[in-house]
């Protein structure tokens, strides 16, 4: 039986995709890790590919413009009922993340999946 197609767990706005393409052109491939807690918590951290060592329990949420997007497995459990939307906002990043082009940083907005989407994700 074919149910509705499962939605992506992480998506990006056109501006975010464009920023990533700019970063890749400048720095080479990049990766994202969703942070949690404290000062820069809940911002998506962007690193050069391989800069952040991915552990065996991290969860690959998806890829954005060909770049992998990971989250901690415990955080995944708390977040999995929501879709993450990668966006770009004004201002330089405050922490260790690469910016989204000059004077911009990446942010995450979230959307709660509806029941059909949750069902599709469960059976996917």
């Amino acid at each position, binding site marked *: 039986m074919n149910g509705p197609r499962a939605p992506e767990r992480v998506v990006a706005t056109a501006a975010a995709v464009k920023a990533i393409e700019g970063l890749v052109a400048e720095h080479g491939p990049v990766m994202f*890790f*969703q*942070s*949690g*807690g*404290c*000062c*820069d*918590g*809940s*911002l998506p*951290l962007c690193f050069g590919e391989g800069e*952040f*060592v991915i552990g065996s329990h991290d969860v690959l949420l998806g890829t954005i413009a060909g770049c992998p997007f990971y989250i*901690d497995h*415990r*955080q995944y459990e*708390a*977040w999995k009922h*929501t879709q993450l939307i990668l966006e770009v*906002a*004004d*201002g*330089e*990043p*405050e*922490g*260790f*993340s*690469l*910016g989204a082009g000059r004077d911009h*940083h990446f*942010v*995450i*907005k*979230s*959307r*709660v999946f509806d029941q059909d989407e949750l069902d599709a994700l469960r059976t996917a």
Partner: protein
Amino acid sequence: MTDILTKPTQDTGREGGAETGVFVAPGRPGSLVSLKPRYQNFIGGTWVAPVKGEYMKDVSPVTGEAFCEVARSTKEDVELALDAAHRARKEWGETSLTERAAVLNKIADIIEANIPMLAVAESWENGKPVRETLAADIPLAVDHFRYFAGATRSLEGRTSEIDKDTVAYHFHEPLGVVGQIIPFNFPLLMAAWKIAPALAAGNCTVVKPASPTPWSILKLAELLEDVVPAGVLNIITGPGAEIGKALASSPRIAKIGFTGETTTGRLIMQYAAENLIPSTVELGGKSPNIFFADVMNADDEFLDKAIEGLVLYAFNKGEVCTCPSRALIAESIYDKFMERCLDRIKKIKQGNPLDPTTMIGAQVSTQQMEKITSYVDIGLQEGAQCLIGGSRVRYDGELADGYYFEPTVLKGHNKMRVFQEEIFGPVLAVTTFKDEAEALEIANDTLYGLGAGVWTRDGNLAYRMGRSIQAGRVWTNCYHLYPAGAAFGGYKISGVGRENHQMMLEHYSQTKNLLVSYSTKPLGFF
């Protein structure tokens, strides 16, 4: 130095009355705080321009306007700071405890003599109300330096008699040069938490303040130029991705101390692993604040204290890693207790942080504002009920572009993301529990374990809860006290290590064991 100590510190620098007037912003006529257009790095006891000559703007969240520039350092500047620290390392490490403690006490005296000036600087750069910096941030920084001045002198090595003729001596030796990365939420106090034990233990340090708050610590450094021996304390400003990384991954540091976000903490530990050095990481939290039914057994001073205990989520606009951001309230008292709390929250005065009657100021940056807004949005999407607040505050005039967010309360359940994630803003997530077992279950149903609060008139219940909550600190019938001498640090993914206590000296020391035989007899093996 004498000038600094004898400088009059009575309440000047205000408009509209010496006792109640609003403090004049740094750099303006009559302000307590002098301001230069541009600040360099503090390296080797002097001011050094960044190698590449680049600067970045420092924005006050009070107005949303840049008020000065600080060095936008690069890895070359990190090396300069490390050079200075390594030059100073041997002499400082061999300086007697008497003299090291004296330097720490002098730092404390100078901060104390300049509390109003530093309090205004801290408030202007961070957005926190000056009544908090005057009463908490800066006096606590003073006390931390004094505490570690005393703690290092009272720390004794141990001696063990292995057998009649064999003795094991244990000495504390400095690590050498350490790197320390400071968060934006208590720029001076968190710096004191880190710098005081590092220096007390005989180390030299290279400090990187947070990108949104690089300046107030430079104001402190201006006061300390002639007090701390050159190279013992070095401060470099710049972006985390560039100099934070260069410092934390440098093979020239012997330890990295970090306070900040959990994933970055993991990155710091990864860098430390590359060099096989220790790290202390103090990370995120989502602290439960638990109110048992008996708090309402009487309408007395204790109930008043408990109500304030809930409202403390708005302390420092919620930008505290131990923010009591999950209130768990006994179902049987919820309606009455929450009514009293909401009434208190309505009375929170928000506005210009330099007004000493302001209770909640501005969020530190536009990024934090956006994050808070997006969390309230997702909380509402998940079905949480907004009991109060929920929006950005817009003022007219000079504060129009500042980053103000209303004290907010969301009612929901513990599986919602607003209950699971640190919002780092004045947003409280409230839920109820039926009994002690459920209170404990909800309290521990979190990734984090930094702080917790327990409120009850029953000492045995308080003890049981305190021992069962998986958090590094359980405030019992109090909250948000940060005295030197009480160990602070996280369980679970809230971090590794403890600060604020004499044990911190051990975390900034090597243990040297001299194993000495006083026997002349050979072992007999060869």
